[in-house]
């Protein structure tokens, strides 16, 4: 009972602190503090409720147990991180996003492709990842190459849709201006359409960061060498080592947020001119 009361108390305190902080003028410190407090509140509540309701640790371990396991397994976690994130996810992300942008440009350039390839491409890209993953593992082997392939397939569609939409987003007058310069296709592309498409492209890039991570992890469920975050998660669930599962999930969350944050920073630098960024320095 005490634990549960403590849980609600933590929630009240966290909310109060954030409401207070949010009223302060916006700065780097408050921008960081608010989400951190939010997160801490969630964690404290989690701990309190797991203890208070006496939840079995094979169903949901308390954060303290996860933290202890995390600290004890940094070696394994690092090895898995390198295998899954650096080799699998990043490679796939770069290849997949790159391919999608190129494809979007091609689709945008040739009406023939736009009418032919886009529907078919949409169809192919809609093949569900869960079904594709075993097949790709079969084709590309157990190591990180197949994980990268899964990521490529996964990030391709969101990237394509966003980029195609972005390339069509420059306004009438801006395009007319380029026409009067008899600007070549490529010049218009690089000087007008791509810059104007950037807000959309970054939309895609941001969504793709998390997809890349999920894709690389999930693909390991379908066959892998004996390391990798997905491998560890799937095998540890079988062994009911849920604290290790959650430690891996924490790594995934941290890496994913950092990845997303990095792309968001880049976005801020590149699309500073867009109304959604302006005035929110």
């Amino acid at each position: 009972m005490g634990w549960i009361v403590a849980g609600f108390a933590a929630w009240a305190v966290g909310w109060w602190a954030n409401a207070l902080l949010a009223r302060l003028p916006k700065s780097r410190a408050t921008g960081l503090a608010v989400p951190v407090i939010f997160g801490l509140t969630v964690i404290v509540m989690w701990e309190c409720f797991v203890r208070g309701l006496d939840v079995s640790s094979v169903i949901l371990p308390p954060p303290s147990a996860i933290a202890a396991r995390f600290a004890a397994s940094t070696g394994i976690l690092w090895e898995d991180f390198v295998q899954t994130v650096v080799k699998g996810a990043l490679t796939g992300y770069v290849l997949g996003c790159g391919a999608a942008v190129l494809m979007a440009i091609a689709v945008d350039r040739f009406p023939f492709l736009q009418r032919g390839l886009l529907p078919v491409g949409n169809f192919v890209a809609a093949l569900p990842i869960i079904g594709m993953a075993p097949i790709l593992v079969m084709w590309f082997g157990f190591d990180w190459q197949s994980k990268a392939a899964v990521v490529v397939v996964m990030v391709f569609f969101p990237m394509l849709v966003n980029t195609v939409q972005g390339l069509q987003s420059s306004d009438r007058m801006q395009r007319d201006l380029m026409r009067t310069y008899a600007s070549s296709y490529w010049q218009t592309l690089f000087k007008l359409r791509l810059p104007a498409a950037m807000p959309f492209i970054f939309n895609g890039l941001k969504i793709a960061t998390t997809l890349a991570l999920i894709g690389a992890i999930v693909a390991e469920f379908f066959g892998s060498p004996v390391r990798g975050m997905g491998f560890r998660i799937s095998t540890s669930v079988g062994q009911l080592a849920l604290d290790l599962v959650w430690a891996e999930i924490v790594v995934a969350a941290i890496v994913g947020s950092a990845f997303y944050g990095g792309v968001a920073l880049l976005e801020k630098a590149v699309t500073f001119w867009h109304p959604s960024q302006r005035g929110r320095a």
Partner: protein
Amino acid sequence: ADEVTLQLKWVTQAQFAGYYVALDKGFYEEEGLDVTIKPGGPDIAPVQVLLGGGADVMVDWLPSALAAREKGAPIVNIAQPFASSGLMLTCLKEHGITSPEDFPGHTLGTWFFGNEIPLYTWMGKLGIPTDGSEGGVTIQKINFNVDPLLQKQVECATTMTYNEYWQVIDAGLTPDDLVVFKYEDEGISTLEDGLYTTEDKLADPAEVDKLARFVKASMKGWKYAEENPDEAADIVLENDETGAQTEKHQRRMMGEIAKLTAGSNGALDPAAYERTVGIVMDGGVITKEPEGAWTHAVTDKALN
């Protein structure tokens, strides 16, 4: 009627024929039970379902049940319909493996999720390193099918006598193309499909009574299935909601399963239990002798 939910360890197939037969033939009904059977799958840890309250009884292998128990899951074996193990390692002859001494330098594929325990134990007994060091084997995690073996991504793969082995044969290979190592023959067999429930259920006499009736009816189903394998296979097919199973495969599987359940009346054989514990402890999966991991309370009641 009393409600009982059974969580299987795997998808609907002849491996679980006894339960489906008992359901279909009304054996459960006769005992005043209303039974729901939940199929499993690769992503289901039956222990979680059991502890989460989603099921009253689950089917699991003893090694993984012991591991779960050491992790703090209060689960207890109440019956053991499978007397022997169907687990084996199947290699393609062309890779030149004829005996366990030939393993070093080769790639072995296994399912994880608790199923790797016997393999690691075996390798430990043979003194073959599995950490990728010199003179050891490479272990790969494979999906629950035999494609990696057929496509030569691994040289040996874990199979069950009743299922994957026949998939290899169906793929066009003959028994002559294969070398198989049955865990049963290597003296490292562990107990497979048993029935488990939680400690607090066993503390309640009413529950024990219900479970006893459940075990009784289930064993009746198993014995019926052993005697009428083709009918049992057809019952399984009817209950397969995915519509993916084939009659040929299930009938053959039922034939193999009958060999494994033969000789069990449902009561756990303490000697086989001790052997399994020994193997699992050698493998380092559990560190201390488990206590209270099984009981005859239910089977005693059911069989008298």
